[in-house]
């Protein structure tokens, strides 16, 4: 691509440099000239509709929208003067008179609403036009967010977000002129929508209180919250989170635009499920007395553990860990004699077979064809699915899906095949589809490692090889859990089926480190025979963030930190080391996995016969060191 030509424009008498193709607003922003906007969002295509960003061109009176007007060399614009303020105020008045803005009743009141902020900034103290008082519905049928049409300014930021970031086009505008209204699907509701993925990106993009998160409403003003950037732990993509907290509560979670991975986008798991879904948290250590779990202190619980471990040879104690552990804790695990990790089927062969996939998103974005094999990005890695959809819609890239299970992505695919029933004629179709494809990406998941998956993979490779040198696809491997690659790299024993491991007698004491598995680690119980085998073990210790059926098998329960209390790094599917910053101090007496491991180690090693493992222990991260909001609240 040719380098863009440098140009110079004059903004408010100041000479500013830019390049051809930039808009007036982009050049102004680079020079810290603030032009008011409403419908503009940096990462979306310009709309040019709200007319807040008008500037005077070449001495006026002509005004043009700065957000969508390409800059030309030598242009002169004025961004601030009395006339522009007057015009912008009038636009604001029209917006206010159009709908029913009852600010004191709105969760965005006082600082979170761009409309209100602009009105204050432009001295709009009253509206000169009679209000229209339309009677409009409020859609509260959605699980996580609501849409109050009374507060909508029709900026289409939500519509463009849904199309350009999530790629599903659930939202659009219906009707003409003043009857314009945001619609979900074909005039449906969020609750009944068949296309909405609940990614919540539209809500984050809305400048007003029209789209609002139910959990956030009235928990606190975002502008008065503490905000921390951290990493999502819900899948191996590792999207960047911007978490808002107040009074030791999570108030809102947005995608972080500083994230080199996800560039501001999230899927429903990171955006909502981890904080807006109700869960029962374990807040204190518990021990079983007369069949009931009772609350105890940490020293009491560790005492109990020490007693249980007393005299046990190392091979009779085991540690079964969730793969949600962070790198620091994983290093620690190796000190235990019998430590293993419970993982999803075929995940480990994927991590062993595949390299990490640096720049996966760049590859996906530039692809002419995307092949999905044995992965479920629409369910597991929503942000990858979003990138696939947007590439298919924007670039017209071809999409081929091989699976054994239906997926929401199927609707976007050119070819969609159940791998169990592939015939010869089918491969001719695949070959034809790939004939003039230059850049392709193969997204594969654990199921690609099954025998049938491997057969398909070999077929695909043969097709690509016949296309010639350098025609192969970029590979994007998608394991299931956040840190699987690190687990495998650390050389821990991964278990797809825990039964043989549990059955390897004699096991007298078992620690289950469930970390903050959303289901409290209960998925372990789905393994064949697991329930029976767990019952046979004398002492089961479970550390988990959430209550579940698993705690029913435990004699000792330890409260673990949730993702917003964790501190450390994970290695994502691209091979990037991503930081988790503690967002809140641990709730109750919860401790993070590393601290729990350390405590377990001390409690059991001092009493067990024949201590095992290295004596050089990595220093544990102190968990209480997180700045607390409460302390500033006296």
């Amino acid at each position: 691509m040719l380098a863009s030509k440098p140009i110079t424009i004059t903004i408010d008498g100041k000479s500013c440099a830019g390049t051809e193709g930039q808009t007036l607003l982009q050049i102004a922003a680079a020079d810290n000239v603030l032009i008011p906007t409403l419908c503009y969002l940096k990462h979306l295509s310009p709309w040019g509709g709200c007319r807040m960003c008008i500037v005077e061109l070449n001495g006026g009176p002509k005004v043009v929208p700065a957000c969508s007007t390409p800059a030309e060399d030598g242009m002169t614009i004025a961004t601030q003067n009395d006339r522009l303020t007057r015009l912008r105020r009038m636009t604001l008045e029209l917006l206010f008179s159009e709908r029913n803005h009852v600010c004191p009743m709105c969760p965005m009141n006082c600082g979170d609403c761009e409309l209100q902020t602009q009105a204050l900034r432009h001295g709009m103290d009253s509206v000169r036009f009679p209000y229209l008082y339309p009677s409009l519905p409020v859609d509260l049928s959605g699980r996580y967010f609501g849409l109050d049409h009374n507060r909508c300014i029709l900026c289409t930021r939500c519509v463009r977000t849904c199309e350009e970031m999530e790629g599903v086009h659930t939202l659009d505008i219906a009707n003409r002129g003043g009857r314009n209204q945001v619609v979900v699907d074909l005039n449906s509701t969020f609750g009944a929508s068949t296309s909405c993925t609940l990614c919540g990106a539209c809500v984050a993009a809305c400048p007003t209180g029209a789209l609002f998160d139910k959990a956030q409403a009235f928990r606190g003003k975002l502008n008065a919250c503490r905000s921390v950037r951290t990493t999502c732990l819900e899948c191996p993509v590792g999207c960047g989170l911007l978490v808002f907290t107040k009074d030791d509560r999570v108030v809102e979670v947005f995608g972080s635009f500083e994230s080199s991975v996800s560039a501001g986008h999230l899927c429903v798991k990171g955006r909502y499920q981890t904080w807006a879904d109700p869960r029962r948290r374990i807040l204190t250590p518990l021990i079983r007395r007369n069949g009931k779990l009772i609350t105890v202190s940490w020293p009491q619980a560790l005492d109990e553990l020490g007693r249980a471990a007393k005299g046990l040879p190392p091979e009779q104690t085991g540690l079964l860990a969730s793969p949600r552990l962070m790198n620091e804790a994983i290093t620690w695990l190796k000190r235990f004699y019998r430590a293993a990790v419970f993982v999803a089927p075929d995940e480990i062969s994927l991590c062993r077979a595949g390299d990490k996939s640096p720049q996966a998103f760049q590859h996906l974005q530039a692809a002419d064809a995307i092949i999905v094999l044995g992965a479920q990005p629409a369910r597991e890695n929503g942000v990858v699915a979003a990138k696939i959809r947007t590439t298919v819609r924007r670039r017209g890239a071809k999409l081929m899906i091989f699976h054994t299970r239906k997926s929401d992505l199927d609707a976007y695919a050119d070819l969609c095949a159940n791998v169990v029933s592939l015939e010869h004629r089918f491969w001719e179709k695949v070959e034809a589809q790939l004939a003039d494809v230059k850049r392709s990406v193969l997204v594969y998941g654990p199921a690609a490692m099954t025998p049938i998956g491997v057969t398909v993979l070999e077929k695909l490779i043969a097709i690509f090889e016949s296309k010639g040198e350098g025609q192969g696809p970029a590979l994007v491997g998608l394991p299931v859990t956040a840190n699987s690659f690190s687990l495998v790299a650390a050389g821990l024993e991964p278990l797809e089926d825990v039964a043989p491991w549990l059955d390897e007698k004699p096991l007298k004491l078992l620690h289950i480190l469930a970390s903050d598995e959303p289901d409290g680690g209960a998925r372990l119980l789905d393994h064949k025979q697991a329930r029976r085998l767990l019952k046979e073990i004398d002492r089961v210790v479970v550390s988990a963030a959430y209550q579940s059926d698993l705690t029913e098998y435990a004699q000792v329960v330890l409260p673990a930190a949730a993702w917003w209390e964790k501190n450390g790094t994970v290695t994502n599917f691209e091979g990037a080391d991503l930081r988790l910053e503690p967002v809140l101090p641990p709730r109750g007496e919860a401790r993070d996995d590393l601290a729990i491991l350390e405590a377990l180690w001390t409690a059991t090693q001092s009493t067990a016969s024949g201590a095992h493992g290295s004596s050089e222990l990595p220093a544990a991260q102190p968990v209480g060191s997180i700045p607390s909001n409460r302390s500033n609240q006296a």
Partner: protein
Amino acid sequence: MPSEYRLILKHADQPGYTNDLDCYLRHGGYEVLRKALSLPPRILSDGRKVSAQEQIRDEVMLSGLRGRGGAGFSCGLKWSFVDRKSGKPVYLICNADESEPGTFKDKQIIYKDPHQLLEGTILSCFANDVHLAYIYIRGEFVQGAKILNRALAEARAKEFLGKNILGSGYDLEIFVHRGAGAYICGEETGLIESLEGKRAYPRIKPPYFPAVLGLYLCPTIVNNVETLCAVKHIVAMSGAEYAKLGTPNNTGTRIVSISGHIKKPGYYEVEVGKVTLGELILDPAFGGGLREDRQLKAVIPGGSSAKVFKAGEKFKLKRRGPDGQMSTVEVGVLDLPYDFDSVQQAGSMSGSGAIIVMDDTADLTEALENIAEFYAHESCGQCTPCREGSLWMAKALHRLNHGQGRKQDADYLLHIAKHIQGRTICAFGEACAWPVLSFVSKFKDEFQAKGAADEARRSRTLTAGAGPGPDLRIAASPEV
């Protein structure tokens, strides 16, 4: 003695003239196309070859043809803007959305002489190396779409269309696309979005000028039905001959739709600038005058979005004399030559060539409400000033006509209208602001009197303690 000059409508209304191909061929149809396709390249004195296509484009430029769709932009110049080096295909779209209130001229061509439109379109496509063209026809023209589709099939069967047209090696396909009944689909970039299957949201210009980034982001020509028909006659008679029709810079003929309070509403094809607005309204050859005992009150000269003229208004026009000297002459409304430049100098536009006449029985606040309702209904809703402004103007006018007016409403209306024009993505902003600006400022006393009368009556009712009258119920009705 002014009279019609029928060039495009020459055959349309002749007894026995039908809209099928045979009839068209009997009247010399597709001869121009046949000639144009076999036009040899012209060799210039410097040895440069001018292709047949270029020759046609030059003729159109020379003819001075101005677009008949509304803006009156030079057709030759528009074609010259087309980006021919992009390597992308060039598309041509015939704008048959004819939805400007008061306009009913394209309909005559489509219904009565569709092959003339096709021949003009094929010639224009050939001249611009277009291989795929669309006729975007307004949804309400159900029959029109059928007629065009039949005409296309006939033309295809006779090899006027399709692959290797008349053995020339030139390929062209034309498709009819029906709109769904929205005025904004007439705006060329809205039309393009609609044709792409999206909501007809007009695009931001710059950068989306159709000549560069049009249909599917390829260079695209959008021309009105009448403009494309004129191309046929330009190729037939040469640009220079065409330019002799009409007046300088306002060449050729155009079809004027006249409606309103006149004896003979209808469409009349005239040489541009050779007749005056007064003649079009009063002459027996055209509108035939007002009804008995009626006085002229107002005229809209170019479709409902053009600024209104008040009877008795005087305009200063710049005229170039035979000696080339510029001079200023004063003309009244009725003496205003009906051409692009004169109407524009008089502060309005000849737009789509639709003249709407109102006599002294017309209530202008009601007339304006009717227009404003139309624009409030048809705004696409992208731009705040247009979406809200058009709605608010319609609301205020509704109020004024239903006993809830206020004295200051007139000024409010002007205020809003001024806020819309020049602040929007497309020219709809002007289209909805101009009628309000012109009606209210030219007939301000009427608007103020209505508001004042309402106020006076309301204060009477209040002092008489009669409680809310029937008027308030109207204001409280939830209709939006």
